[in-house]
């Protein structure tokens, strides 16, 4: 308990001794984590939109006249990429047509015999599963035509992949930059107390005891930066949500709720963990060298 109290007191001392550097580190960590959070939120939203569109995407397979859909149903039943499959009879198709035509539904009766073929509606798990599935279906002799939103599908897949790659790259860069900034700040703090630490080691202070204030300092800077970034993101994202809602009301983006809270919690944990790891590395390296007998 005494050690813990000492560590907390010493952490405050360390932060205020180099307050300019602490503020600079805090701002840098906050900026980098803000960029990281912003990219991650963008990527999450792209995924969210894509998954919503994916949910509504249907591949329609039209059979040749007088052909039953059994062979197609049999083939897609085994396919793990297929989420749901449903056969539509000519009668059901006609009912749908009538419903769609509304007031002009009587025109359908003029046709006489039902000209509509059997068809199959297929939904897949992911956008990128559609193209290979269509390629498999068009080869059936009983299949007349396969209709799907080909270009939209391909574009959505490309956007989803690109946003994941970009956010992954930014994530790595942001983590490396913040880690380096925190690591160097802690190193400067350690070197400013080099003499003190060496005396502490000589009189029998444990490495944990010596490390604690620096580790706390790193955690404070990392977590503090994450908090600032979260506050900034909250403001920016709320404005963005309002703007999207008024300009592109059909676009279904993530709003409030559990996902955002969890996201900010994750950002905070990332900042704190990064601060902890960097400072532990810096101080551990120094004490290991200092304790090595000559």
């Amino acid at each position: 308990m005494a050690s813990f109290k000492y560590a907390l007191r010493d952490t405050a001392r360390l932060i205020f001794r180099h307050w300019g550097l602490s503020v600079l580190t805090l701002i840098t960590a906050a900026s980098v984590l803000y960029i990281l959070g912003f990219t991650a939120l963008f990527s999450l939203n792209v995924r969210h939109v894509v998954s919503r569109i994916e949910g509504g995407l249907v591949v329609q397979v039209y059979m040749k006249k007088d052909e039953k859909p059994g062979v197609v149903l049999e083939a897609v039943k085994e396919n793990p990429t297929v989420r749901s499959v449903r056969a539509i009879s000519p009668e059901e198709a006609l009912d749908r047509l009538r419903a769609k035509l509304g007031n002009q539904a009587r025109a359908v009766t003029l046709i006489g015999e039902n000209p509509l073929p059997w068809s199959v509606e297929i939904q897949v798990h992911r956008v990128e599963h559609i193209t290979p599935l269509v390629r498999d279906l068009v080869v059936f002799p009983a299949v007349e035509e396969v209709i799907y939103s080909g270009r939209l599908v391909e574009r959505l897949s490309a956007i989803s992949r690109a946003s994941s790659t970009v956010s992954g790259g930014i994530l790595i860069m942001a983590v490396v930059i913040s880690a380096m900034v925190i690591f160097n700040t802690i190193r400067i703090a350690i070197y400013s107390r080099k003499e003190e630490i060496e005396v502490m080691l000589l009189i029998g202070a444990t490495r944990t005891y010596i490390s604690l204030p620096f580790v706390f300092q790193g955690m404070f800077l990392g977590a503090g930066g994450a908090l600032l970034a979260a506050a900034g993101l909250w403001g920016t994202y709320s404005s963005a949500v309002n703007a999207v809602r008024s300009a592109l009301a059909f676009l279904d983006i993530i709003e409030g709720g559990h996902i955002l809270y969890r996201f900010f919690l994750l950002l905070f944990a990332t900042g704190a963990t990064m601060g902890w790891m960097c400072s532990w590395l810096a101080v551990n390296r120094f004490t290991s060298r200092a304790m090595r007998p000559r």
Partner: protein
Amino acid sequence: MDIRLAGVTKVFEPDIVALEDVYLSIDQGEFVYLVGTTGSGKTTLLRLISREYLPTRGQITVGDVNLRKIGRNRLSFYRRDVGVVFQDYKLLPNLTVFENVAFVLEAMGIPSRIVQNRANEVIDQVGLWRRRFLKPPQLSGGEQQRVAIARAMANSPSVFLADEPTGNLDVRTSEEIMRLLLSINAAGTTVLVATHDQYLVDAYRQRLVELHNGRLKRDEKRGRYFFDGEL
């Protein structure tokens, strides 16, 4: 704790032999002067015992601790039992006398109330009660030396190492320091003092170990500074 050195040699890069084949045995509660010219290996010997250095050859055991085999974690606990007064004091200039002493105890995780009592007690013992809130640069050389002694004795070590504790001090202050060291020894602590101070060695005669060019030249029960040929 007793101290045993068996065939200890210390060579610094590239090939400076600081100590060569030293055998020395110091029993618990003994007071030993370590004398010799500059560069004779006195400081190296003390630093080997405090395990700042590792011998190139040979074994050092303090109590039941083999210093070659001691791990990093155990080293911290070993050092708590060895009080060291450094030649350059190694006081922290931005801390007060009280804080310099208290910080040793705090580093051991001792509760703050006990730290306060013990720090005040040792500061009083070394005669710096009135100066406890001053910082080292505001103190004289002798006073700084006493702070260093207070810090080394704060956690009641079993072994006390002092490197030139009276260097650059006047005779009167040196005698005060000497009496302090003797009182620490009287409490059962093994004391090893590296010194050049001929006056003190002859005035307060104790076991004397002389080093010359890294070799053990003389080991007398109640020796005088200069060898008088009566071994």
